């Protein structure tokens, strides 16, 4: 397979117009850390955009960062750290579970955006899609276009930024993107609360969110995982609640919540280390397991888990107050069971994130769409990429 290395959108236009003329299919690649997400499709050539790298303009007091989409996350994070700011959606490093790309590769910001990856703070601060303010791209038609802007508040025209987030490179090749940044919290600490069951853990978290003590993130670890992570409370489930803000505020809120829930505190360093591991799904990384991501209404988490036969022998961690489940195991039936559970609930999705064998050949990695919604997706795809030049069938068959 050929590698077409391009360094700007002009060259992207040329390469895509060639592909249009030749009716060939291109695989978009920057860091390469997420290329095994999605369907196993085959391509005629790789369009390598890893040269689209660098920060273009960063104005911390405007909360606006403009950079090229292929910029490695290490560079992004270093620049933000210097200004004591963050990407509030807390992008995870999936490279750690996917084990792909160059050694130590952190992935690129474009990959994070294309996969709409968000970490624990997504529960209260929003997803990657909430922080992309604007972009410039070349469509699968070979045309240069932009959408959004470089200011925080903008409703001019359709919000194509939302569409680009989570489109897995199927709509366009992005170069310049603008993100909203936020100040880093001065400190963060956590609270651990033991629970008898997942139902109790989810409703315990809900009652903490019904207070004015502003929890910012909430995960649930089953006892085996809690033990491995050094936070075992001797209960079947441990809820981990994170509080962020200025020191006086965090101390005050932690005090209130400890009194209310009877939990145990976790100091700033241990809290940071644990949340980073939760963010990156590290507790599930080491074993040779498939990993599924389930997004559901938080209160549905126990029902999703109950749909998994104990014989399937899964490991899991829950984040987003129960609204995000990471489920690991080897059985090919996990996906089928999750999809059936979600169909019963009527909302949510299950996506295969890591495939250690050949699971994605027997079950679609993306949650299948219903008839009219799939048709609409195909029309949306065609409106950007009528011939299917870009990452064709990466998400769904026939688009």
């Amino acid at each position, binding site marked *: 397979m*050929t590698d077409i*290395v*391009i360094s700007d959108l002009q*060259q992207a236009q040329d390469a895509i117009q*060639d592909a*249009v*003329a030749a009716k060939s299919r291109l695989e978009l690649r920057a860091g390469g850390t997420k290329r095994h997400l999605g369907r196993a499709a085959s391509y005629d050539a790789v369009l390598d955009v890893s040269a689209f790298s660098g920060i273009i303009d960063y104005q911390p*007091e*405007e*909360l*606006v960062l403009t950079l090229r989409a292929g910029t490695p996350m290490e560079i992004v994070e270093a620049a933000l750290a210097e200004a004591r700011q963050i990407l509030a959606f807390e992008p995870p490093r999936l490279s750690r579970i996917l084990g792909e790309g160059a050694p130590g590769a952190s992935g690129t910001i474009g990959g994070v955006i294309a996969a709409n990856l968000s970490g624990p703070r997504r529960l209260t601060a*929003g*997803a990657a*899609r909430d922080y992309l303010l604007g972009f410039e791209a070349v*469509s699968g038609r070979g*045309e240069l*276009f932009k*959408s959004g*802007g*470089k*200011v*925080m*508040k*903008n409703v*001019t*025209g*359709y*919000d194509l930024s939302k*569409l680009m*987030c*989570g489109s897995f490179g199927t709509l366009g090749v992005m170069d310049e993107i603008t993100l909203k940044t*936020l100040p880093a919290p001065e400190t963060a600490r956590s609270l651990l609360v033991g629970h008898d069951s997942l139902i109790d853990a989810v409703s315990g978290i*809900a009652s903490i969110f*019904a*207070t*004015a003590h*502003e929890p910012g993130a909430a995960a649930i670890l089953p006892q085996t995982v809690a033990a491995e992570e050094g936070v075992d409370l001797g209960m079947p489930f441990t809820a981990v609640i994170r509080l962020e*803000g*200025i020191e006086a*505020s965090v101390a*005050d809120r932690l005090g209130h919540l400890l009194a209310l829930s009877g939990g145990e505190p976790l100091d700033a360093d241990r809290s940071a280390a644990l949340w980073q591991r939760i963010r990156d799904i590290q507790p599930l990384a080491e074993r040779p397991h498939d990993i599924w991501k389930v*997004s559901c*209404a938080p*209160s549905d988490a126990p029902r999703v888990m109950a749909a998994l036969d104990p014989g399937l022998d899964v490991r899991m961690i829950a984040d987003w107050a129960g*609204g995000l489940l990471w489920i690991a195991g080897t059985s090919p039936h996990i996906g089928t069971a999750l999809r059936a559970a979600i169909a019963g609930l*009527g*909302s949510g*999705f299950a*996506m295969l994130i890591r495939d250690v064998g050949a699971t994605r050949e027997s079950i679609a990695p*993306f*949650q299948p769409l219903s008839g*009219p*919604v799939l048709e*609409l*997706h195909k*029309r949306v795809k065609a*409106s*950007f990429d009528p*011939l299917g030049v870009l990452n064709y069938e990466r998400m*769904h068959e026939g688009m």
Partner: protein
Amino acid sequence: MNRRDDICGALRRMLPDGCVVDSTESMKAFDSDGLSAYRQVPLAVVLPETVEQIAAVMKYCHEQGVKVVPRGAGTSLSGGALPLADAVLLGLGKFNRILEVDYANRCVVAQPGVTNLAITHAVQADGFYYAPDPSSQIACSVGGNVAENSGGVHCLKYGLTTNNLLGVEIVTIEGEILRFGGKHLDSGDYDLLGVMTGSEGLLGVVSEVTLRILQKPATARALLVGFEDTGDAGKAVGDVIAAGIIPAGMEMMDGLAINAAEDFANAGYPREAAALLIIELDGPEVEVDALIERVEAIVRKAGATSVRVSQSEEERNLFWAGRKSAFPAVGRISPDYLCMDGTIPRRRLPDMMRRMNSLSQQYGLRVANVFHAGDGNLHPLILFDANQPGELERAEEFGADILRSCVEMGGVLTGEHGVGVEKRDLMNIQFTEDDLKQQQRLKCAFDPGHLLNPGKVFPHLHRCAELGRLHVHKGKLPHPDLPRF
């Protein structure tokens, strides 16, 4: 029988009694929205009561090639809900029920005609609220909020509608009922929920919404800060954010707006100030108290000439009373006004103020300014008298020049009010022809016949077939200059 009678007859047959309004007299109530300089009586008004009825109307209109303009409460300031003479106006006013309050998942499911404030009212007894708070919140509908992606004074910290919306049910122009999102957080596919938000009624009719609700902050306090110089005020805003503080709201008013508001609300605003900031902090009490001190020090250092810190809830509300009545207050000092809505990078604020002053002289019209200063969203209010021949046109040109300046300074045409008909013809200042074509192709994916709210947002309507055509560079050789490995 003419075509209009046919259409009205067919609509009557598919809807219950009283759901079709087609006498010119009674349709007058629907002939404009918040951009009241523009009026048009529609072909007919329909007020369906169920989703199935919306679907039936849409299906019929689609089959017959009849245009449809959705309408919520009709408070749009950009003419988004302005009727068309040859279109059915589809009013969502009867969809006024809250369907579910779900505290376990911290969301409310509501029909689109429910008012913004009614969501907060439904949950406030339990300590919750719905964060986006447009000044029109007692009147505007949540469906309209989704269509316009509306903001409010607190969106600096809490986001616009798009950041607080979990799911929608929509009816397509074909009459199909679809759902995007739900009570779960992430959509695993194309973010059509995000695309619907802010689409100004051009992609589908929102028939149900699922909104995220938040626990009300324990406390809120505000500072009222006067400056002799707008530049200093602008700098103070940047300094607060640079210090790592994101206030719940950070609003600015200029001299004319300060005095109009003070006349109206007696909020105790410093009349001599050239700029006034209202900075609100909310959260746990210890945090708010600590941050108020920090912010006070920052604004003093930036050159504040007066600083008041609210000592009670009444005082905080008083600080806001002037700002919240800024529109009616300006309405008292001028027979008419136009409200503009551009956004600029915040650091360009002093340049923008100078530009507006010189434009004000050039056009011979006064302008009062209220800003969502934290996020650079301007609301210049251009004062004019529609009874003076030519003044409306002059005011509109003045407004267009302000928006042009916004784009020149790196900003955008509209921060929260939408494009509608008002800014439609300015779109090509901000976007290239190809940018606009790509947006219209997306429109074609939803509504290939351009039947939904046509004439809004886009200056030129291209036929979908023409937009879809691919210009293949036939026989072109692969580029020799590209490295291939």
